């Protein structure tokens, strides 16, 4: 992964920063320049609520190369309390306990790395509450 691409996503991956439309209140994660609901271009930066529920999930058995060491691992779509959904790994959880509707919380974790000498990728994963 390129350093600029990594660095510019840090506010979202490290600090859960999102954009809230000043006109209609819709929250965008990642932030955008125009609201698809009301077409306003005015946003304020907010921090996402880190708690939510699992809307759907899967367990990845055949993984991309940089995730092979982690497989099998669970991934889900999580809807946070402020209505924003995001895709994230579900960790610290037995696969048989995974359920649609289970409450989870985002935690700061290591995601993957670019080999032995490249960037270490950090970000959020979710854990059961």
């Amino acid at each position: 992964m390129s350093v600029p691409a990594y660095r510019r996503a840090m506010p979202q991956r490290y600090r859960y920063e999102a954009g809230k439309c000043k006109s209609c209140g819709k929250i965008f994660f990642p932030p955008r320049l125009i609201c698809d609901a009301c077409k306003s271009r005015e946003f304020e930066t907010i921090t996402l609520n880190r708690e939510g529920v699992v809307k759907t999930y899967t367990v990845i058995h055949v993984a991309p190369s940089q995730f092979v060491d982690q497989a099998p691992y669970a991934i889900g779509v999580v809807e946070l309390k402020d209505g924003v959904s995001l895709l994230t790994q579900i960790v610290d959880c037995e696969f048989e306990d995974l359920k649609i509707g289970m409450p989870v919380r985002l935690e700061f974790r290591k995601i993957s790395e670019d080999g032995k000498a490249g960037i270490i990728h950090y970000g959020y994963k979710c854990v059961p509450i």
Partner: protein
Amino acid sequence: MREVAIIGVGMNKWGELWEKSINDIFVEAALEAIDDAGVDHLDAMYVGCMSGGLFNGQEHLASLLSDYLGMGPIPATRVESACASGGLAVKSAIIEVMSGNAEIVLAGGVEKMTDVSGDQATYALATAADQEYEVYQGVTFPGLYAMMARAHMHKYGTTRKQLAAVAVKNHDNGSLNPLAQFPQKVTLDEVMNSVMVADPLRILDCSPITDGAAAIIVCSLETAKKISKKPIVKVIGLGHATDSIALHSRSDLTSLNAVKLAGERAYKMAGKTPADIDLVEVHDCFTIAEIIVTEALGFFEPGKGGPAAESGQTARDGKIPVNTSGGLKSKGHPVGATGVAQVIEVVKQLRGEAGKRQIEKARIGMTQNMGGSGGSSVVHILEKI
């Protein structure tokens, strides 16, 4: 707007074509389409290709392929919309003829996917998902569709067996298609016990990595009537729509809005309803995709796509034959070529050239091609005149 017809089709046997280059396979298919149409020149060309850059290190494909096809200076355009690139090439060619800007236009699609390792192919395909917020987290394409499958099962009670029934049916159809990559029949047990890829999807729920090309010749209906020696297939509807690329940005994980909208636009233009369609080729990149797409196109109520597949309503002798070609599942899925090959199957069916898989009295057919996890979709409706 002018009326448009399809007068020529061409595609090669799909599979691992290690002895041939991307140029070779495209030109083979294009020449077959040109010969089938009986035309001596092209006025323009569209090529659907998702990622010549990542699979072959080759961009600037439109000019390269026009040159290798011996068509030199004709205007040639490459279009990209991930796995819907082929369908978009067909749409682009139709619109160019419809507008009167060109008379005889080739729409082709190509993807040469086995020149790279499986892991590099997975990476190239994953670029059709949101890199920073989906792929970064470790999800794969089977993973995205697996999450749709899980949500569909949860909401509607769709079963593992219903998913498997789609693969069994498509391999059965593909066994009658001499151009299919995997013409072997499979059983329910084989699908349900195959290697787990992304729970609940197993390897036999997934379409393969394929090398292949396909091409059609599009012209005005007027010209078709003058030069065509075969039954003429008219384009009566087309629809195209997009949706958020990221699965998590969708309000409903159990439906595909781009497919629904593209279908509605195509039905409206054609003045037809789902009941008028005699057969459909849909984008079954994963078994769950076929189930959700048949719902989105209005053939079955939401949640009824699974039971419909299991009870044979989508078989060749069912209410609506789905993927008589074998679909992406058995025929193969060279991503940029798929949408063009779907049109070819429908044209062959309408002309009565589908051999052992022929649907009797087929008069109106539909195709549905999809990019990524449903971030784009192109639908065509064709009628034999």
